[in-house]
């Protein structure tokens, strides 16, 4: 598939914009560079392309700021396999969003087939490469450890996280289960299941366990019963012992009491309560005797009081008359209260009534109707208010008519004559507005000057050839940082390696000297020498045993001594030999260390040398002295980049200045044409001022015309209002006339009525007050008359002569005092009489009580001795006697009861043992022991019952069963997931091996070609090493050194990843046909040489399919022109 044109119909800030990607001529690569500064719309165009292919985002669209989402529309012309050239469009609908050139819906399968079924994400992963993706991809493929399958897959799919993915999947599976693993989820879960199983089994109530618990329960019950029985026996023994002791003690007490009773008077026991009764009788006799004396005194005093207070016979009838008088009312109020007020207020009320009558007459005179009855002019407040409103409405309407009529006349006078109508100068205004926007080019000119100065400042610290350096291409910033960071550590490594090597060499030489010294020592005789001496001795012995001569004897003796010496020396030299062996080992170890340090020293020296060479080359590329420290590289790089950017910006500013000047010329021509059409002629030099004057004059004419038109409209409006006011006045007049006709005020105008309104309101108030006062005076006069009649009647009752002139209230008050005094006297006399009677009765009762008490006292002491004692002393002595008798009886009863409550045999046994001071303690101990045994067996019995019950009730461990089920479910899920992960890792690794096998021939060639092209001359080829764990990709340097991928620098890995992606693209294009490949500013950090190489690779993509390069670097555009024949350049403007 090829993209021929992208239509940004309504999308982002674009409206009906197109990006055309012409089809290249034969034998030229299909490469389009889309160049635009930041914010020019490159990202918008790229997103539009993706949304055309895969549909638009359905909500919160980022490019809906100019057009609503529902209006967004993108399109493209595509060359599609098997379909040829087609135009498609895409809108933002959820369904049927893909349209043909006529706007008719097209199935999405139309595109998906051409895209080989790739989804949006797949497409982006495979066919988009940007700077960040290149860097991240480079870093991530390091994780592949050179695995060929993973690397080729990364190239094909664009997915670089395979190594991490597989590691993480394996780790997740291992977390669940790992052979021999102790901390795995599975192990922990199984341990927990085991614990739970044990706990559940322990609490399970099996029939056997139930039988065991029941048997234990029965046994505990039997044991408890036996102990309980023993306790019962002990209690009987204790009871018998206690009873015997009590029998013994009470018998002793009875003997003492019998002796005491012989000394006290004889006679029967006092009756129950005799002590209290006798005491009470003595107290009664005393009290009643005193009461008789007191009564005699009281009776004498009360008889005198009765005689001193005689009765008033007329007072009762007078009191009844007064009560009747108090009940009388007049007008709902008590007569007495009303009469009291009447007497004092009557005169004042009559005077007030007369005053009101005079005021009413004056008011009628004020209204000029003195002969009219006041009542005919009394009007209520509400009706009076209606009358006032009707009069006011007449006056208001009259006023409105007059005001509006005057307003119309004044407006007509102010409007004056009609001015001339304004002319249409809109064309001239538009041309003038446009001219003004481009009239001033000074600001842009100043910008050019400012940027020129900035460039001069930026290059002042740079060599004169800075521009050539930039044009030649700057090294990658990452490379500079890498070298700057690496150089000090490599130098330190070199110094360290040198020091270490010297140290190891000295150590080796020292060890060598020591070994040589130990070797030369005579005591270092070895085992071979000893064996040789023994062998010589044995030979001499064989010879001597055969010859048995003196010579052979001497020789044997000498050999024997030699052998002895050798053995002695060997024994003596064992320590020296150990020392020698140690010296050999030390020497060898020192040699190994020296060789290693030598190797490290050589390696680091080589690395340092290479780095120094690289540093010199970088310094040269940056225009610095070859021996410049790499630490200064980044600053110089930054200065160069800034200078280049400032220069580029200056060029842009200059170009914009030219464009602005062109616009100014066009605006001049347009203004001149418009002025001519408006009739403005004259020289060009003052055209602007004449146009400005004409437009100003035209504004003034337009304002005058508008003002006159507004005045005309206002007069028309006022005339309408005047007609309405006339109509309103007629209505008010009619209403007022209807009101005035109901009153004796004929002929009065609205103005007159408003003047009379206060008099009418006053007349209403005065008339109302006068009527109320007349009624009150009548009521007061009635009350005074009634009271006088009552006073005359009550005076007659008391036997006095009535005085008609006397104040009836005073007469009645005097009678009231007499009646009250008579009542008080009667009350006191009656109370004295009642108390006199009561005292007489009380005296007789007291005398009778004394007689009865004396008789009862004699009865209580009947047949008792000690008659000479006073009653209280006598009864105390007899009570003491009776108490002794009762105590004796109680002791007897108690001892008999004790004996009866105990077992007879046991009682006799225990009584026989008394007196015995320790017997009670012995019996108590027996009891305590039995109780303890019983308590213990009771607890055992209770516990056995509890266990039995708990087995049913409390042993439910459902939380454990729930946890057990949960763990099993988690294990089921976890096992399944672990199996999925393991199978996934297995399948993926197998798939990657297959991928390597399938693609190694074609892709490796492509990878090598691309990698060498972009990294030359640092790398000469790539190779594949077969290792146990699989095939590994390595890079080959020109000297034949093979470098595993994971040992490559970050920059090199990024370049390798680029080469893999290019190979992947070629592979896809071979298998399924080409799709457009998007390269988004991937060469931002490349120096020119590498950028050229990268562009050449893009050219290769363009030969397999279509390459679209987005960039905002102008120099890359130039490089592309130089590098790729027939490259198409599209510039996007902001």
């Amino acid at each position, binding site marked *: 598939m090829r993209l021929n044109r992208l239509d940004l119909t309504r999308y982002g800030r674009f409206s009906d914009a197109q990006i055309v990607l012409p089809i290249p001529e034969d034998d030229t690569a299909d490469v389009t560079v889309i160049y635009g500064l930041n914010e020019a719309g490159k990202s918008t165009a790229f997103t539009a392309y993706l949304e055309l292919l895969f549909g638009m985002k*359905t*909500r919160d669209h980022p490019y809906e700021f100019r057009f609503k989402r529902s209006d967004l529309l993108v399109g493209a012309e595509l060359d599609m396999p098997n379909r040829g050239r087609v135009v498609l469009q895409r809108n933002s609908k959820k369904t049927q969003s893909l349209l043909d050139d006529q706007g008719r819906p097209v199935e999405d399968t139309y595109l998906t*087939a051409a895209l*080989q*079924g790739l*989804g949006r*994400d*797949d497409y982006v*992963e495979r066919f988009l490469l940007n700077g960040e993706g290149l860097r991240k991809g480079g870093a991530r493929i390091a994780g592949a450890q050179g695995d060929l399958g993973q690397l080729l*897959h990364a190239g*094909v*799919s*664009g*997915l670089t*996280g395979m190594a991490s*993915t597989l590691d993480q*999947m394996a780790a997740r599976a291992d977390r669940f*289960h790992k*052979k021999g693993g102790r901390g795995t989820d*599975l192990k922990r879960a199984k341990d927990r*299941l085991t614990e739970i199983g044990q706990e559940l089994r322990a609490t*399970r*109530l099996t*029939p056997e366990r*139930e039988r065991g618990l029941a048997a234990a329960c029965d046994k505990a019950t039997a044991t408890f019963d036996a102990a309980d029985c023993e306790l019962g026996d002990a209690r009987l023994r204790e009871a018998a012992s206690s009873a015997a002791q009590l029998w013994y003690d009470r018998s002793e007490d009875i003997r003492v009491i019998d002796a005491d009773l012989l000394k006290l008077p004889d006679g029967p026991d006092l009756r129950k309560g005799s002590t209290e009764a006798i005491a009470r009788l003595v107290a009664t006799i005393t009290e009643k005797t005193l009461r008789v004396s007191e009564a005699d005194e009281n009776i004498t005093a009360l008889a005198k009081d009765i005689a001193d207070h005689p009765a008033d016979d007329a007072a009762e009838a007078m009191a009844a008359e007064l009560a009747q008088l108090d009940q009388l009312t007049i007008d709902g109020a008590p007569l007495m209260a009303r009469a009291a007020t009447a007497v004092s207020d009557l005169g004042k009320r009559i005077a007030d009534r007369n005053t009101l009558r005079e005021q009413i007459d004056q008011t009628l005179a004020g209204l000029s109707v003195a002969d009219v009855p006041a009542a005919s002019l009394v009007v209520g407040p509400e009706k009076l208010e209606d009358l006032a409103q009707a009069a006011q409405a007449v006056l208001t309407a009259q006023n409105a008519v007059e005001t509006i009529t005057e307003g119309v006349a004044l407006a007509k006078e102010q409007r004056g004559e009609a001015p001339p109508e304004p002319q249409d100068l809109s064309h001239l205004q538009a041309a003038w507005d446009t001219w003004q926007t481009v009239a001033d080019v000074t600001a842009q000119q100043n910008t050019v000057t400012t940027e020129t100065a900035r460039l001069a400042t930026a290059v002042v610290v740079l060599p004169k050839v800075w521009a050539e350096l930039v044009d030649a291409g700057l090294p990658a910033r990452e490379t500079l940082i890498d070298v700057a960071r690496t150089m000090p550590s490599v130098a330190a490594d070199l110094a360290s390696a040198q020091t270490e090597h010297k140290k190891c060499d000295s150590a080796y030489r020292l060890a060598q000297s020591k070994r040589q010294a130990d070797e030369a020592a005579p005591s270092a005789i070895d085992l071979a020498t000893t064996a040789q001496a023994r062998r010589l001795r044995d030979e001499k012995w064989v010879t001597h045993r055969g010859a048995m001569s003196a010579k052979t004897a001497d020789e044997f003796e000498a050999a024997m001594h030699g052998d002895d010496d050798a053995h002695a020396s060997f024994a003596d030299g064992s320590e020296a030999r150990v020392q020698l062996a140690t010296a050999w080992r030390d020497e060898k170890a020192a040699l190994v260390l020296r060789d290693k340090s030598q190797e490290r020293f050589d390696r680091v020296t080589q690395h340092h040398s290479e780095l120094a060479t690289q540093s010199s080359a970088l310094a040269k590329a940056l225009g610095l002295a070859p021996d410049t420290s790499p630490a200064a590289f980044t600053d110089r790089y930054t200065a160069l980049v800034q200078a280049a950017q400032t220069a580029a910006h200056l060029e842009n500013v200059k170009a914009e200045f030219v464009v602005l000047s062109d616009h100014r010329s066009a605006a001049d021509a347009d203004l001149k044409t418009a002025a001519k059409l408006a009739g403005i002629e004259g020289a060009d030099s003052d055209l602007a001022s004449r146009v400005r004057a004409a437009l100003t004059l035209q504004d003034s004419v337009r304002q005058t015309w508008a003002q006159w038109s507004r005045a005309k409209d206002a007069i028309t409006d006022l005339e309408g209002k005047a007609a309405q006011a006339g109509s309103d006045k007629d209505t008010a007049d009619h209403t007022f006339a209807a009101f005035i006709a109901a009153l004796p005020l004929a002929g009065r105008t609205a103005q007159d009525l408003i003047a009379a309104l206060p008099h009418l309101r006053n007349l209403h108030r005065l008339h109302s007050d006068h009527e109320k006062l007349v009624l009150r005076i009548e009521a007061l006069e009635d009350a005074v008359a009634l009271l006088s009649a009552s006073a005359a009647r009550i005076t007659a009752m008391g036997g006095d002569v009535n005085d008609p002139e006397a104040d009836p209230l005073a007469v009645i008050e005097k009678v009231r005092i007499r009646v009250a005094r008579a009542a008080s006297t009667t009350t006191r006399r009656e109370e004295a009489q009642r108390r006199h009677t009561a005292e007489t009765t009380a005296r007789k009762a007291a005398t009778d009580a004394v007689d009865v008490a004396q008789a009862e006292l004699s009865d209580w002491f009947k047949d008792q001795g000690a008659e000479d004692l006073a009653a209280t002393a006598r009864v105390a002595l007899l009570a003491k006697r009776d108490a002794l008798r009762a105590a004796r009886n109680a002791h007897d009863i108690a001892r008999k009861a004790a004996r009866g409550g105990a077992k007879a045999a046991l009682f006799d046994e225990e009584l026989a043992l008394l007196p015995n001071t320790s017997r009670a303690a012995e019996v108590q101990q027996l009891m305590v022991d039995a109780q303890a045994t019983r308590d213990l067996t009771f607890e055992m019995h209770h516990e056995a019952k509890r266990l039995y019950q708990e*087995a*049913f009730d409390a042993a*439910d461990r*459902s*939380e454990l*069963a*729930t946890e*057990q*089920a*949960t763990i*099993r*479910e*988690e*294990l*089921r*899920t976890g*096992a*399944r997931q*672990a*199996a*999925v*992960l*393991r*199978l*996934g890792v*297995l*399948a*993926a690794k*197998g*798939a990657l091996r*297959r*991928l390597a096998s*399938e693609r190694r021939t074609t892709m490796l060639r492509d990878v090598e070609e691309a990698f060498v092209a972009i990294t030359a001359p640092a790398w000469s080829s790539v190779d594949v090493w077969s290792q146990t764990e699989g095939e590994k990709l390595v890079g080959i340097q020109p000297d034949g050194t093979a470098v595993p991928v994971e040992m490559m620098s970050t920059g090199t890995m990024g370049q390798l990843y680029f080469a893999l992606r290019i190979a992947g693209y070629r592979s*896809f294009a071979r298998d*399924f046909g080409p799709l457009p490949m998007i390269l988004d500013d991937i060469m931002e950090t490349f120096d020119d040489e590498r950028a050229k190489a990268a562009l050449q690779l893009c050219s290769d993509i363009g030969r397999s399919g279509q390459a679209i390069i987005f960039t905002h670097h102008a120099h890359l555009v130039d490089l592309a022109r130089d590098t790729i024949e027939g490259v198409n350049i599209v510039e996007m403007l902001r």
Partner: protein
Amino acid sequence: MRLIVSADTHLDSPIRSVALRNPALGDRLKQASRDTFRGIVDLAISESVVALVLAGDIFDNDFPDLKSRAFLVTQLARAASAGVPTVLIRGNHDALLDHNAHGALGPDIHLLHKGNPSVEIAGVAFHGLSFDSSHIADSLLPDYPAPIAGLTNVGLMHTSLGGSAGHDPYAPCAEQDLLAHGFDLWCLGHIHTPFERTSGPVLAVMPGIPQPRHFGERFGGCVAIVTLGDGPPVLERRSVGHLRFVEAELDLTDCADQSEVLQVIDNALKGAQDPVRDTAVRLRVLTARHTTDDLHALANELLESIDRVFIDKVKSFAPDKPTDDNADDLVRLMREELQEAGFQQANAQMLEELRIALPADIRDALSEDALDELLEDAIAEVSLSLHGMDAQ
């Protein structure tokens, strides 16, 4: 005249779901089977039914635990004292109902077996035979009594009928033979998914498990109330389970960002809410970018503000490609790899090692039957993880 019919109560069998890791749910459901059984007895009393019918597998354990029996006796005695007798038979899990070993259950609790196959209650003749061993290979129907004329005849049988997926064949019996035996109603047990069969006026009802214990039993959760009268029996089902299992299918392929993903999951979880019972949701998610673990974490985050809903399991699926996946080399090559003898051998070895490491009772999770699904999931897992990794 009404009966409550239940079976397969599996007393003291716990619920099996990862959702129980939630402490609140775990606490509420640790006695789920007992609570549900109490609810059935409550329902029988409140509905004043003629009898409570239990068609076997009242217990769950293969080992006898008298606590479970004590619970059953307590509950049925409660029903009896309220005037609701119980008629029941033994299923293949009901050793605790062995009357020879453990004695009778109590007044008005009628265990039907070979020696006592029938009982009459309020004009209804109940007939049933109990399992005498844990497995019966032959049909019990020929041994059932003939219907009693003049009475309504109700049969109780614990049977796998003609066979059911997930259930071993126990006392197999052809449906047409059962319905033609002459009884008016058959109360069945053993199969945990409820269903009913009719033939003319005869009804056979499988009430299903009243409290589902795992996702596979999600169609249970109810008892049957059967009304007997002049016409054919009338069936009504009532929910009694305290927790239900549901499945929710989600499609995240159109989601543009994380907030849309969360919205879709939130909608699904809230849609699963039930006003009166807890719900364990199994999410089946169509996505090209999210692994199971990612989705689980997102769902759990949302559940903090949704009551009575819990996650049973989450499973993610990669969407099908619109055309064949030839362009996806990795997937294609993995599929080819699956066919390799070497891979299959390594795969079998790995699975066997894992299977052996598991407790015996859950080794079926990695059975041969599950292999194809495991392999498909493995391919999807690699693909999802790889795309997810590169998206970071």
